[in-house]
């Protein structure tokens, strides 16, 4: 039996386990079963018990590490220091980590990579365990879709250790038949990372599914015409149980928040349905959404690039189509 697989659960602003953490735990569990490795979950938080119990729904053993300093210090350095201490105290050092491909997960992975001297594979879209091949030992095989999904790749670690960052919505979280146990855990101090103080936490985000987790995205671009145009898209998103997205043009114009931006310098999404209104489909946007299962585009310009890769392209004035579609969806809902 080789080293364990560790899953680090992430906690949201309310202290609850994130949805992606359950997906990461499920992927790690399948990896552990195939590779014959134990899988342990870890939650580091000021009050870790609730999130640790949620993570134990997916994993047989979860360590809850109470870190009161996280209330006033930036998370990554605190979590990294605690993980390094846990790894130093473990009977056998962990072989693999499965983390969330989120800003916090990337920060943590970058720190752990140099502190534990292990490689990182980012933005995994699938995970399997495979036998030794091509000079790479038996271990995780990580599927990725770089360049906005124009290529599908499979990668592995050259040593028997590594960190994998899993993208949202790639794995369906499946709880265990019998939940695992939570162990409260304290750690010594092995590394002392520089202090980054949290002065204030400002909450502005409106509720609703996050754009990376939504099954349906209703996105608007320059063709929406202004902030008022997004009101109609919000209504459609509400009727479809989805989230509103945007192209950079709409964000740059100040019509909608950067958190909704999809594309090269925004988010990468893979929803079941992507409805694009007034989005031209420039390459910078395309790389963030072209792996959506179904793409429907409405644009007045018959030559818009999005017409080349949309499954359904409606050449029409969206100002008239949006209310008509909302009415049709309302009529269906009865």
């Amino acid at each position, binding site marked *: 039996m080789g080293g364990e697989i560790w899953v680090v659960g992430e906690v949201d602003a309310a202290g609850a386990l994130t949805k992606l953490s359950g997906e990461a735990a499920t992927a790690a569990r399948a990896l552990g079963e195939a590779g014959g490795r134990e899988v342990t979950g870890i939650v580091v938080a000021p009050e870790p018990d609730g999130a640790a119990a949620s993570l134990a729904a997916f994993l047989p053993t979860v360590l809850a590490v109470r870190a009161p300093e996280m209330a006033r210090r930036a998370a990554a350095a605190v979590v990294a220091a605690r993980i390094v201490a846990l790894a130093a105290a473990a009977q056998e050092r962990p072989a693999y980590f499965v983390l969330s491909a989120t800003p916090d997960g990337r*920060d943590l992975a970058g720190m752990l990579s140099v502190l534990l001297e292990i*490689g990182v594979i980012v933005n995994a879209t699938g995970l399997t365990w495979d036998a030794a091949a091509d000079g790479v030992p038996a271990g995780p095989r990580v599927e990725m879709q770089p360049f906005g999904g124009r*290529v599908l790749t499979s990668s*592995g670690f050259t040593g028997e250790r590594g960190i994998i960052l899993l993208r949202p919505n790639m794995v369906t979280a499946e709880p265990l038949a019998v939940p695992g146990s939570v162990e409260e855990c304290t750690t010594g101090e092995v590394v002392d990372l520089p202090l980054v103080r949290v002065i204030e936490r400002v909450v502005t985000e409106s509720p609703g599914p996050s754009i990376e987790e939504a099954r349906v995205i209703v996105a608007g671009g320059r063709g929406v015409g202004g902030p008022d145009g997004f009101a109609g898209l919000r209504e459609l998103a509400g009727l479809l149980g989805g989230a509103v997205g945007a192209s950079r043009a709409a964000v740059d114009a100040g019509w909608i928040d950067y958190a909704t931006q999809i594309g090269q310098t925004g988010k990468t999404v893979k929803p079941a349905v992507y409805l694009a209104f007034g989005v031209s489909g420039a390459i910078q946007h*395309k790389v963030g959404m072209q792996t959506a299962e*179904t793409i429907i585009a409405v644009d007045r310009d018959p030559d818009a690039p999005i017409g080349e890769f949309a499954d359904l*392209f409606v*050449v029409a004035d969206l100002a008239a189509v949006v209310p008509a579609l909302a009415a049709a969806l309302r009529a269906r809902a009865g």
Partner: protein
Amino acid sequence: MRIVVLVKPVPDPGEERLGDDGRLDRSVSAVINGNDEYVLEAALKLVEAHGGEVTLLSMAPAGITDPIRKALAMGATRAVLVTDPALAGACSWSTTQVLAAALRTLEYDLVLAGADTSDGGGGVVAAGVATLLGLPYLSHARRIEPFDGGVRVERLSAAGHDVLEATLPAVVVGTQLLGEPRYPSLRGIMGARSKEIAVRTLAEIGLADRPVGGAHATTALLAARRPAPRGSGRVVRDPDPVAAASAIVDFLVERRAL
């Protein structure tokens, strides 16, 4: 204020391809990584407001200097390019070691980096660089504001933003919200021709005997293939609004999305 901006030349987005060896083909036309341009803009504004200079730091193949010249034309003072044949195929762990070693040879108050790179880079390098150098790390910034001896950053969070503070020197990773990058002026382009691009090998940054570079990569690409094409889509031209709505509803039903 002395600022080092980590700048990565990447293939023009949309033009990326893998070579026969499975590595990213870096011979196609290169541009500055999108997120790096935003932090460069932020760095230029900071030195305009507070004085100082901006040094670019890149790790790239020797021939790829056009994007670095463009960044110099935007207003950076000088550039350091770490280049070595041994670095072809380097993994993110190696890249982190290289950039940290190069930074040890420079003087700075602030290191800025872009949130992630469009060539499949994962946005993990800057956190590692900060950790190796023992510097505070502040990421996902939408605003960067220095104060006496320190830096205040507004970091995007899932729920809004956090206000963070740390002492200088520090490493800050920025996003697009820092503001639209400027275009190089004609004068900037002319001036950039005579600006220094100092080229450094692994030996010159003290890494000659360290296990960095392609031969020591921690990760390996095992297979690559093209996804099945989407197939040509259906086009509905100039329908009236009700017909357009029902075309969309029918399609959603057909795809079992309703």
